C-alpha cells in the first residue's frame, strides 16, 4: 500500500457504489429476458438450429413468448411439452407443473453439473500443467476464421501468451442469437459459437500439455446474448470472459435495463464456472480523456465489483479493467499512468486486474507504438497488474499480424525479465500520491451524484464514456419481461442456492 490512501474514503466509495447499485439489482432480480431464458434452455441441453440457421432456443423462446408469455419463464412451458419441435407450448399447472419442474431441474442440473466438472477439470489441468505466474500475458487473435485462429493462438501460446482471447466478429454483439457451428467468415474477429469455443479450447489444451503451462481461453459474454454465451463458456470450459455491467449500453447502444438483467444472470453462471470476468472500463478512455475521466473508470469498477459480488463472484474472479490511455504528449504522462494503475491496484488488492494497452494514441508510427507499449508493459509490472493485454505496434493500422504479435511478446518478455521486480524500487512520491488521492476523491463525488440521481439517469447523462444512453433507448428492450409471481428459473434456483 504505497499510496497511503485514506481507508475511510475508500470505505465511503464502496458504500456509495452499493447504494447506487441497489435499485438496479432489484430490477434485475424481478425481470428476465429472452436471452436469460434461452440460456436456461442451453443449460438444459437444447442445442442446434433449424434449417435457416435459427437456433432452436430462439425458436422455442419466441414461441413460448407468443403463446404463453415469458413472465413465468421458459422452463415450465418447455418441459411440459411432449414434443417441443411442434412449437406448441402452454403453461402447465398442478401435477403437470410439478412434473415439468422436476424435468427442468434435472435437465438444467445436468448442465450445471457439466459446468462443475469443467471447473474441476480446469483445476486438475492447472495442477498438472502449472499455472503461469502473474502478470498473465493476454493476447488477441482475430482472423475471422477459426481455422486460421487456431494455429495463430497456438503459436502465440508457444511464444509466451498465458491467455488467448478470440475477438468476435464486429456486429455479433447486436445479434439476438448465437450462431451455430465452426465459422470461417468473420469481420475483424471470429464468431463466438459453442463449436468454435470447443475447437479452440481443445487446441489450447493440446498446447498447454506441450508447454507444461495451462493456457487460458477468453471470449465475450457481452452484447444481446450475454447470458447464453456465459452458459456456453461454462459448458466448454472457457476460463475468462469479457463481461461488463455497462459496456453494452455505452458502446453497443443496448438497452440499459436489458443489459443489467442479462449481466446478473451471466455473472451467476460465471461465478459457478470459476470463470474470471473482465470488465470494460478501459473502453471509456477511448472516447473520454484518460485524465479527465480517470475517476469514471474507478467509479465503474466499484459498480462492477458490487454487481459482481451480488451475483456471487469472488474477488479472485473480478478482472476489473483499466487502461494506459493518457495522451503521450502530456508532461508526466507515465507518472500519471502509474498513479492511476497503482490506485486501482490498491483499491482492489485481491482482484485479478486486467490492464489494457494504449490504443487511442497509437498512430501509424510503429516505432513510437512499440515504445509506448513498452512503457505500458513497464507500468504493468511496476504496479503489479495481474493480466496484461499485450499492445501491438500496429494498433493504429490493422488487426494484429503474426509478426506484430511476436514482436509484442518480445517486448513484454524483455520488460518482465529486465524490470519485473522494479516495484521493489518504486515508492510513489508526492506527485503520484496526490494524483491518486485526487482521482479517488473525484470518484467519491461522482458516486455520490450517481447514488442520489440513480444509475440509469447517470448513464442517460453520459457520465460513462461521454455517451448518453436513456433508460428506454437502445436495442433489446423488448426482450425484457417482468417476472410474474409464479416465475420459474431452475438455473437461478441452483445458482442462488448455497454452494
Amino acid at each position, binding site marked *: 500500500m504505497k499510496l497511503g490512501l485514506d481507508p475511510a474514503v475508500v470505505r465511503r466509495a464502496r458504500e456509495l457504489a452499493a447504494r447506487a447499485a441497489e435499485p438496479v439489482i432489484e430490477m434485475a432480480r424481478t425481470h428476465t429476458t429472452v436471452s436469460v431464458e434461452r440460456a436456461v434452455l442451453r443449460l438444459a441441453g437444447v442445442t442446434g438450429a433449424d434449417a435457416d440457421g435459427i437456433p432452436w432456443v430462439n425458436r422455442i423462446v419466441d414461441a413460448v413468448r407468443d403463446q404463453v408469455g415469458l413472465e413465468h419463464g421458459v422452463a415450465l412451458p418447455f418441459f411440459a411439452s411432449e414434443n417441443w419441435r411442434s412449437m406448441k407450448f402452454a403453461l402447465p399447472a398442478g401435477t403437470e407443473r410439478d412434473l415439468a419442474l422436476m424435468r427442468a431441474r434435472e435437465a438444467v442440473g445436468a448442465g450445471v453439473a457439466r459446468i462443475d466438472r469443467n471447473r474441476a477439470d480446469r483445476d486438475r489441468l492447472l495442477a498438472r500443467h502449472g499455472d503461469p505466474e502473474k502478470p498473465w500475458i493476454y493476447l488477441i487473435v482475430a482472423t475471422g476464421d477459426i481455422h486460421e485462429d487456431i*494455429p495463430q493462438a497456438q*503459436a502465440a501460446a508457444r511464444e509466451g501468451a498465458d491467455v488467448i482471447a478470440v475477438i468476435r466478429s464486429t*456486429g455479433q454483439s447486436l445479434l439476438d442469437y448465437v450462431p451455430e457451428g465452426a465459422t470461417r467468415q468473420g469481420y*475483424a474477429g471470429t464468431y463466438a459459437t459453442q463449436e468454435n469455443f470447443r475447437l479452440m479450447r481443445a487446441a489450447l489444451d493440446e498446447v498447454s500439455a506441450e508447454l507444461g503451462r495451462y493456457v487460458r481461453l477468453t471470449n465475450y459474454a457481452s452484447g444481446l446474448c450475454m447470458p447464453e454465451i456465459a452458459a456456453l463458456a461454462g459448458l466448454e470450459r472457457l476460463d475468462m470472459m469479457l463481461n461488463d455491467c455497462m459496456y453494452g449500453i455505452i458502446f453497443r447502444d443496448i438497452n440499459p435495463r436489458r443489459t443489467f438483467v442479462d449481466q446478473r444472470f451471466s455473472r451467476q453462471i460465471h461465478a459457478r464456472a470459476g470463470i474470471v470476468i473482465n470488465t470494460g472500463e478501459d473502453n471509456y478512455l477511448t472516447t473520454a480523456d484518460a485524465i479527465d475521466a480517470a475517476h469514471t473508470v474507478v467509479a465503474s469498477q466499484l459498480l462492477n465489483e458490487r454487481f459482481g459480488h451480488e451475483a456471487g463472484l469472488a474477488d479472485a474472479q473480478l478482472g476489473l479493467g483499466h487502461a494506459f490511455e493518457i495522451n503521450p504528449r502530456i508532461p508526466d504522462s507515465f507518472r500519471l499512468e502509474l498513479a492511476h494503475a497503482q490506485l486501482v491496484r490498491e483499491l482492489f488488492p485481491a482482484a485479478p486486474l486486467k490492464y489494457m494497452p494504449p490504443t487511442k494514441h497509437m498512430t501509424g508510427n510503429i516505432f513510437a507504438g512499440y515504445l509506448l507499449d513498452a512503457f505500458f508493459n513497464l507500468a504493468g509490472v511496476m504496479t503489479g497488474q495481474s493480466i496484461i493485454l499485450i499492445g501491438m505496434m500496429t494498433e493504429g493500422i*490493422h488487426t494484429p*499480424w*503474426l509478426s506484430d504479435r511476436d*514482436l509484442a511478446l518480445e517486448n513484454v518478455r524483455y520488460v518482465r525479465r529486465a524490470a519485473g521486480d522494479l516495484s521493489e524500487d518504486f515508492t510513489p512520491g508526492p506527485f503520484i500520491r496526490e494524483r491518486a488521492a485526487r482521482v479517488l476523491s473525484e470518484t467519491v463525488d461522482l458516486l455520490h451524484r450517481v447514488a442520489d440521481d440513480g444509475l440509469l439517469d447517470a448513464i442517460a447523462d453520459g457520465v460513462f464514456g461521454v455517451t448518453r444512453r436513456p433508460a428506454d433507448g437502445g436495442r433489446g428492450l423488448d426482450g425484457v419481461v417482468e417476472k410474474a409471481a409464479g416465475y420459474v428459473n431452475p438455473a437461478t434456483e441452483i445458482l442462488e442456492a448455497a454452494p
Partner: protein
Amino acid sequence: MTVETMKQIIRPYGDTTGDAMIQVSFTLPVPHGPRAELAALQLAGKMGLDPASVVHSKAMGPDFTFFIVYGKATHLIDYAGIEAPEGREFELLTPAQVNAAVKAGLGRRLVVVGACIGTDAHTVGIDAILNVKGFAGEKGLEYYREIEVHNLGAQVAVPDLVARAKAVDADAVLVSQVVTQKSAHIHNTKQMAAAFAEEYPTSLTGGLGRPLLIVGGPRFDTVTPSDLGVDRIFGKGTTPGEVASYLVHALVRE
C-alpha cells in the same frame, strides 16, 4: 538545400544523397533457415532492392519466419512529374459564412444524416464531424444553425439508412467506416452507394436527384470516390469546417 528538392529525379535517402537505402520487414510462410533467407532476398530483389541484406530473421513457430531487410532501391522517382495534388476543390468557410450561404442559397436548413454503417461501431470519427464538441478545436455540424443533423450512430443497416435519409429528405448522407479488415470499408460503402442508386433511379448525381454521398475514415487512401460510387471521400484528420465548406460548395453554390 532547397535546390535539392527541385530535382527532377529523386531516390530514397539513408545518410547520403543518392544512397537510395530503405528498410523492409515481412513474414514468409516458411521455416527459418538459410533457404528462407534466400527466399527473402529473392523477394527483396523482385522489389528492386540491390544489394539487399537480411539484417534480422527470426523463426515464429515452425512454419513462419520474420525478416528485416535493408537494401538499396534501384527505382527512380520522377518527382517533377508528380503534381502537387490540387488542394481542396472548395474554399474554406467559417461557420457564419456557411450559415449565410445556406440561408441565402437554399432558403431552408440543409439536412444531413450521418451513420457508421454495417457492423462498424467506431463512432468517434463521425461524432468528431457531427457533434457540437467537434474536433481539433472546431465545432461539429450540429453547432451550425443552418444545418440539421441526424446522427444515427453505430452499426446502422444500409436499408435503415436509406429509409431515414428519405424520411428526413436529406441533402447529404455522411457515412463513416473505420474497420478495414478484409476491405470491409470498401464493400460496405459500395453497398450503400448501390442502395441509394436503386432508391433514386433517376438521379443524376449527389444533390441532383439523390442526397450527396460522403464517406470518411482513416484508410480510404487506396480508392477514389468513383471507385466507390460516392461523391467525396474524407480521410484522416478531417475537420468539421472542411466538411461544412464542402457541403456548401457541392449543394449550395453549384
